[in-house]
């Protein structure tokens, strides 16, 4: 069994009102050093055997993320 992590965030040109709301809350709490917040999704997949990178890339890009508005990062286990 291997553990594969997929991170999904909105593309930079798509505004992220949830991230902005978090940033606003941080400002009210006195954390003035935080300049920007982008909220995303973090998926942890447990996969039988050695992960097939091509298949996982397909899973990430066609279901876990919507490529119209989101960027995706695939993290395969290191040998």
């Amino acid at each position: 069994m291997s553990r594969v992590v997929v991170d999904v965030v909105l593309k930079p040109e798509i505004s992220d009102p949830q991230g902005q709301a978090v940033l606003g809350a941080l400002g009210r709490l006195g954390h003035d050093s935080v300049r920007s917040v982008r909220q995303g999704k973090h998926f942890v997949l447990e996969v039988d055997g050695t992960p097939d990178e091509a298949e996982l890339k397909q899973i990430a890009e066609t279901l876990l993320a919507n490529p119209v508005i989101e960027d995706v990062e695939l993290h395969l286990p290191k040998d």
Partner: protein
Amino acid sequence: MRIGVITFPGSLDDVDAARAVRLAGGEPVALWHADHDLKDVDAVVLPGGFSYGDYLRAGAIAARSPLMQDVVTAAHGGMPVLGICNGFQVLCEAGLLPGALTRNSHLHFRNRDQLLRVERADTAWTSDYADGQEILIPVKNGEGRYVAADAGLDRLEGEGRVVFRYVGGNPNGSSRDIAGVTSENGRVVGLMPHPEHAVEDLTGPSTDGLGFFTSVLKAVVAA
């Protein structure tokens, strides 16, 4: 004229959509997302609601259901398809319409009667309206902000594929006030507001929504 209405787990407005079809003079046909069976319908409506609880992204899981594979094939063959609210989100996720719907810019669920301007009165679902006509129908969504890359929006506008724009205030921060768009051939239409909730004086702010369901009957005859 058989107009299918798909029910996904979490659909809410399928019964209202079927009622609108009937009031317009069509025969509503209930379709189930998990069947590979379009039951010989002439057109399909994807209703509003919260399929799969909006998990992953609104409409994302419903877009990969068995019946949607048949809807995509039929749409490419010219069958009229209408996506309302969650149905619009499903059509974007299925790749039948461009762009995406995301969280409202103000983060609030917005529910009100909304004026729209009809920008295209020559699609399968809008032929009973006039270009530039303003219609009043309810809008209710939390993830209705239409977005796409600027180049994509320019291309859509250039190709005349914006079918509806919000008038008198944009309820969700949609790019360029876009409320609905269509496919290249004008047969697939998606919009966030709800025409099926504006088909009777007793329950709606107007009967302006009925034209969607009368238009498609003519589109099917003409095809």
